[in-house]
């Protein structure tokens, strides 16, 4: 699966995208853990505020649809082709 780093995450990762090998049943959180280990403490801190606690402003998209952290990285029977990661500390949210 291709993971694309949007916004500030590109600068932290030092690259625009990465290829990630997905295990069966892997969740988005699993992928984030892998990425956090691969791209250093600064990148990891942008994803996690504490171990396994994802930053409030991290947004994850699978095949351009927003997904939650516990979602499996599959769409249909196959792994999603693409994951986009975005951190938005300056954009307002709230809970719907």
């Amino acid at each position: 699966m291709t993971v694309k780093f949007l916004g500030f995450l590109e600068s932290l990762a030092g690259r625009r995208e990465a290829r990630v090998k997905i295990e069966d049943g892997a969740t988005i959180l699993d992928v984030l853990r892998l990425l956090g280990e691969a791209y250093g403490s600064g990148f990891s801190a942008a994803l996690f505020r504490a171990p396994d606690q994802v930053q409030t402003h991290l947004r994850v998209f699978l095949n351009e649809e927003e997904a939650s952290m516990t979602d499996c990285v599959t769409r249909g029977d196959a792994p999603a082709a693409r994951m986009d990661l975005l951190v938005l500390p300056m954009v307002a949210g709230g809970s719907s």
Partner: protein
Amino acid sequence: MTSVTDRWIPSACGLCYGTCSIRGHVVDGVLVKIEGNPESAIGGGRLCGKGVSGIMTLYDPNRVDTPLRRTNPMKGIGIDPGWEEITWEEALDEVVERLRKVHEEDPRKLFMQRTTTNSSAEGPLNCFAGAFGTPNIWAAGGGLHCGNGAHLINGLFHASWSLVPDFPNCNYAIYFGASKGHGAGHVANTNIALAADARVRGMKMVVVDPMCNFASAKATEWVPLRPGTDAALALAMVNVIVNELGVWDADYLATKTNASYLIGPDGRYLRHPETQKPLVWDVGRDEAVPYDDPCCATGALGGEYLVRGVRARPAFSLLRDHLRQFTPEWAEGVSSVPAETISRLAREFAVEAKIGSTMEIEGKTLPYRPAAAIYFRGAQGHKNSVYNCLAIELLNQVVGACDVVGGALGFNPVSYGHPETGKPRYVPTAGPDGLMVTGQWVAAPLPYPFADPKVPDTMSLSGLFPLGMHGTAMASSDQEDLWSRFNLPYRPEAMLNYGANSLMSVGNSETVAETLKRIPFIVSIDIALTEFSAFADIVLPDACYLESLDSRPNAFFIFNHPAGLGDWSWPVKQPVVEPAGQRRPAPEVLLEIADRLGIREDYNAVWNVYLKLEGPQRLRLDTPYTYEEICDRELKCNFGPERGIDWFKEHGVISWPKRVEEVYWRPFLDVRVPVYWEFMVSLEEKARPIAREHGLDWDDAYYSPLPRWLPCPSHEVADPSFDLYGFYYRDTIHTNGFTHENPWLDEAGRLDPFSYAIAINATTARRKGLREGQQVWLESVHGRRVRGRLHLTEAVHPEGLGIGGCAGHWAETLPVARGKGVFFNELLEVDWEHTSPVNLNIDTCVKLRVVP
């Protein structure tokens, strides 16, 4: 003979962030008149003097019409930039080249700044910042002056940006430094009508303010106080209510706040050993249970209890004891308001709240609490803004007058959406410890929950101060020292400004100018050449609001939509005339810059999140949409595929009725609010060592779980020759520093005896030998000076000097505005000493002396 085209085009005002709905009368392509749009709830067909004058801003011959490049490398106040006209292509080539370098090195080196006057600036700028990857964006003084405290407290307690009384049902409103319903700010024109009708109906209105102007002049009673002492007065009032009168809404406090949560000797909640939920004392079962135990009859508000060997008391019991120190006599000494007045106001407020009463509306029986305490910029514009606003808010809390009939209403924190689509939808929810999380918010961070304090990595230092939205370090005299202390790993290399004039809107111009001179490249998108423009390297001519499109001029509903029952309205802003000259709407320019930088995917992704675009209306990341196409998708997403931008251009607005559950929402939602700030214990514990490790002065007085009155720096000036408190007020004739170039508004300002003058108490003036119309210098203890004309009046506190902000322009490119009024902000220090160490608010009252 040529044919005459004659059209009324629905749109939205842009001369203040109130953004009332308007109709522009266009004859043969020329705008000849602006009126309010009666089809929209936002303004309801009414329009203020600023709104009708927009025609003069549109056709202002001094607007900037072509891209400009600076030829003089020297920058400073009074230094001619040596503008040369260039093409858009040349301008964007240079802008993109500079921004690309910054983006490649470290995107945080881009410092972005937007105006608060034009609310349409917010979405495009915020989204661009997110796409570019910089967290360094601010509103150029917005927040520091007007909202770091008030909006925080409104968000925590009402899930809303601001508060108004439930005008049709409120019988007793007490305003602290606020003017809601009196000609300025959020939902100005609707609130004017509602407030006027309420006064006619007999609503008693008490205005606590150092100056008797817009709200006070129409009030039943004006209570002048010493600037910055609102918390003292409010704490004494709450003390009288709960300790002398013994009045409180027990049901509200027990079920809708954390007043029943048990607090241990360490100031923290007692928690359930397994779930970690805060405990309350169940008076039915006589034992400690989690706050959300469905079997708990009522959580105790008083008493002391032994829980697993630990003595604990309900938060409300601690609050009552804490308040006893704030007697009316003590508050008189601080605020100058007589003790008997304080006691009387407290008694009136408690009686008028009619605790226990109900009212039936549309078949639903609802709490009826026809009293409201309202606060805004005056109370919040101080170093102690958090406690000032919290203390006032406690008045609403103890009597339960919160988002119920007659009480203090947040601006629309609950929306269940249009009946056909269910959008836009947002509802407050219960977050950690059962405390309310807003359903929608305007700016980062959310009011609750708070992030853990950390070593800051932004220019504002906000990481260490999670209660703050904006920080003074963006433009302070000690910013380099502060950044160095925290090892900020970058410095601003480029700045992108949209419509703001930070030379005038933050504090003294010398300090702000020095910070701007250190930024190697500044690009400014604006409609005129302002004092700020003189520091820019490139100026891009913006289309003004009458030449621009925006699908959400009044979003969010918590920001700028009438409260109370009635209609929801969602209007659009659209061009009533095409942009003249080479002006281009800023959102389109930002999209082009994003395309040239290669960050369109990022920009589209951010827009998708920001606008909550779903399904077929989501932007494909690789598609270069125009701004109109993005607007079209937002409208279709919210109101159905048949109601895109073309539908809205024709109709202007869509309206639908509000539901009772949206307006008087508090009884319908299981959320609580914090009358005891337990989280402050943890925040202080985590922030203090970081601050001390980096050598930052720390004052834990600002981190108490219960509110205090804390003095402003101006209250502690020892030199008796500085004997007056200078403050500014928001003139209803003008909007910040944006409208002084408008000839009609300037004329109104010149006719008004106050707008361009320094208001001084007549008795005080005569004692000093000062006379009406005299030109004087105002001098601060730090040696800052401004010159202005005195106006003697009984309508200002004897120790006060009231000045309409933000006048006193000096740019030669603003020939109408230049030299009019007094530049109050020139007197303000922008440094850590004058910054709140809890929410980074700036202090806006200053001790002065008058020098003839």
